[in-house]
């Protein structure tokens, strides 16, 4: 599924080491920046109608996940962010090393700190500010992560990306034309 010619792609700036799969949907007119070594799965959606989207390096954006820029200030995903399947993200910022697990909804203009973990199906209300190392678990319960596993998790993420780069065909040139 090639991007339709009728809807022009937003200005894309893609790092050459990033991996873009087939059938990614970009919409909007603000620029979308994708950092080095980042993997975008097929059918991930990027909507930059209201603002730019900036994705850092070593991130994974999974299938059916929507990233929507909440405003002119845009959506910033820092490095080492893992976004799993079926998420709906309208955050202003997601801090370094955070992991957003399956089906999470992140409300408009919320700010997620560094190394946060949002466990599956949790919901972050609009405009929330999550401090660093917050874990959202259970029925939107919160606790602070003191496990000191950041290095280990980032290492795992790199291995994950490594594996995906071997498995997924890179169709980045499709979007850079």
């Amino acid at each position, binding site marked *: 599924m090639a991007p339709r010619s009728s809807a022009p792609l937003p200005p894309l700036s893609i790092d050459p080491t990033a991996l873009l799969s087939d059938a990614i949907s970009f919409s909007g007119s603000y620029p979308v920046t994708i950092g080095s070594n980042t993997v975008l799965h097929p059918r991930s959606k990027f909507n930059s109608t209201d603002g730019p989207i900036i994705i850092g390096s070593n991130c994974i954006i999974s299938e059916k996940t929507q990233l929507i820029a909440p405003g002119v200030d845009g959506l910033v995903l820092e490095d080492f962010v893992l976004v799993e399947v079926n998420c709906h993200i309208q955050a202003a910022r997601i801090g370094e090393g955070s992991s957003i697990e399956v089906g999470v909804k992140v409300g408009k203009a919320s700010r997620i700190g560094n190394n946060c973990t949002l*466990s599956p199906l949790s919901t972050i209300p609009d405009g929330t500010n999550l401090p660093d190392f917050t874990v959202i678990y259970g029925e939107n*319960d919160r*606790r602070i992560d003191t*496990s000191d596993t950041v290095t280990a998790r980032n*290492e795992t993420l790199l291995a994950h990306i490594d594996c995906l780069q071997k498995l997924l065909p890179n169709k980045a040139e499709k979007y850079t034309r």
Partner: protein
Amino acid sequence: MDISIGVLDCCILEALWHSRLPKSFNLILEDRPQTRVGHPTSSNYHFTMSASFPYIHISCPCNEERPQIMAVDSARPLSPTKSPTKRDFAVPVPSTPLTPVKRRLFPGTSSFDGTVATSGDADGERNDEEDDEDEENNFDPHDQRAAFSLFPIENLLYCEDCHQIRCPRCVTDEIVCWYCPSCLFEVPSSTVKSDGNRCTRNCYLCPICTALLVVIPVNHIPSSSSAAEQQQGPFNLFCSHCHWTTSDLSPPLQLEKPTSISAQLAKVTPSAHDAEFNRLKQHYAQQLGNAQEDFTNSPAALTRLMGLYTGLGAGGSGHAGGRKGRGVKKLEMKEIDRPREVVEEREMEIVEQMAKLGIHATTNTKQRLNQPHEPRFLSELRPTAVLLRTKRSKRCRACRHILVKPESKVQTTRFRIRLVALNYIPSLTIKRLDPSIQLSSLVPHKTHRFLLTVTNPLFDPISVSLLTPRYTPGTDYPSRVTILCPEFDVGANTDVWDDALMSTRTPAPVPTPPPQGNKDPRMATVYEQKRNYTSVVIEVVPAEIPDTRVARIRDERLLEIPIFVRVEFEAEVDREDEEGGGGGTSSTSGKHGAPGSSGGGGNPLGREKVEYSYWCVVGVGRVGDPVEGVVASEPNTPVRTPVATPVKAPRTPGVSKTPLRQQVRA
């Protein structure tokens, strides 16, 4: 802060109850199988189920007040060509009913208005007074008792010997094996008895969120390092869901080895409560040693232990002599000597700590109750060992035959025996004919059409009668219910059978399904008929229900329709089987020559007329507020449709059929 000894010991015993009770108490509480998943029990019945309309629950015969007797009755041959009449129903009632119909349903007045309509031509038009009279004879889904026997068909078993549906209440469980759901190791029952009902290997759950804990090194070891380096400790238990680690405890709990965690934990966390338990255990074991009786297995000993707390109080051995016990020796057991005191300073400490650390550092009720020592602070939590689970076989309570028997190997999910009701009784499903119907707010006085589908799991064609009271019973605001074609045939579940025969023997005597172009007038209003299912239309006209307090309490707006399903079919029977005698609901009418439907296979097997029946309850939806413009068209809708039971008098199929089809297309 002064609590008597007995009570305290009781508390401790109770705590142990949860953690390590021997099997002989038969109290492996937490791993009860989820036989009633999603199933309502009495009080929360209407609330839990209301979310998912429509639903169909089948009433187990144990709903009847009568005892379950499995005697064979004097069978009454039933002719499929003749529709049941009032006379049929009024046949002298056998001592044990053939069907789960309530006893008082049969004599005198008929329970279904349809039966009257068939028998008497003059009183075909019923009046409402009579209906009201009959109401109490019908199955009442609003009845408090009914909720206990109503189950989705998936939860029901079927006893081939009793020919009865069996619900979880009608079966006895037997434990086949204990196993840990996490490491899938089987635990022998002797170990369960001695070590309790938790995994003693390396399976631990997070005390914060109950996810499984994994072992990770405390200090990050790069993956490039050698295997020997990776085995170097210390180690943490880590929850990958909420990122809790044993280092979060105070003092931090770290393990030296990544294996044999239970042993390490036992060493590292000597809890005061465990010590207390051991002291008590030792004390009472000693007492028991004196009594020279198996404490855990003897009811007499248990009575004696209970006597300690109830009648006699602390140090009550002096009163024991006064008890007259048949064979019970003089009570010699003593309470443990030293009372466990509640230290005031310790309590004050806790209060201070709470004030200092705030609410977020304290445990919630669930976390607290999950732990034997009931910690008040998160830092006092301990990893909890995984509870064992059981595989169980199930027996029919009446005849003791096994209904379910799982493979005893833990890793396999197969069953050796599994007699589920789905394979024996036709299953009903209901859906809206008109997708615009809002199940959560049905419009009063409006005719809602639903499609009721009966699916036949049997390899014989069946004929089905669906009987329903004209007005829903058990409510002050009865809704009118009409099944447009209450008696019809459902084809055999043949295809699978065909395939099986094809692959083994070539010339197979396949029972032919009923001809599709059936000109039987009974089929006149059947909506759809396919291989092994038939759909008919059911019309529901909900009553207007005021929003009063009483109506809310009684949940009058929940619209549940009881339907009596009666199934008849001819089954091939083995001769030996026949000698064994039929069971509760099947009735034999002698051997037929198997003409007709068997297709002349030339196999002179005995044919048996089988009939069985059950009540089911269709939860259609919830009645909403009245809508303007839709008004009562009582007493009848313009279209006169046959009600509930087949009518002998010539139908007017055109009248009832044509408008229906039109509506469907529209």
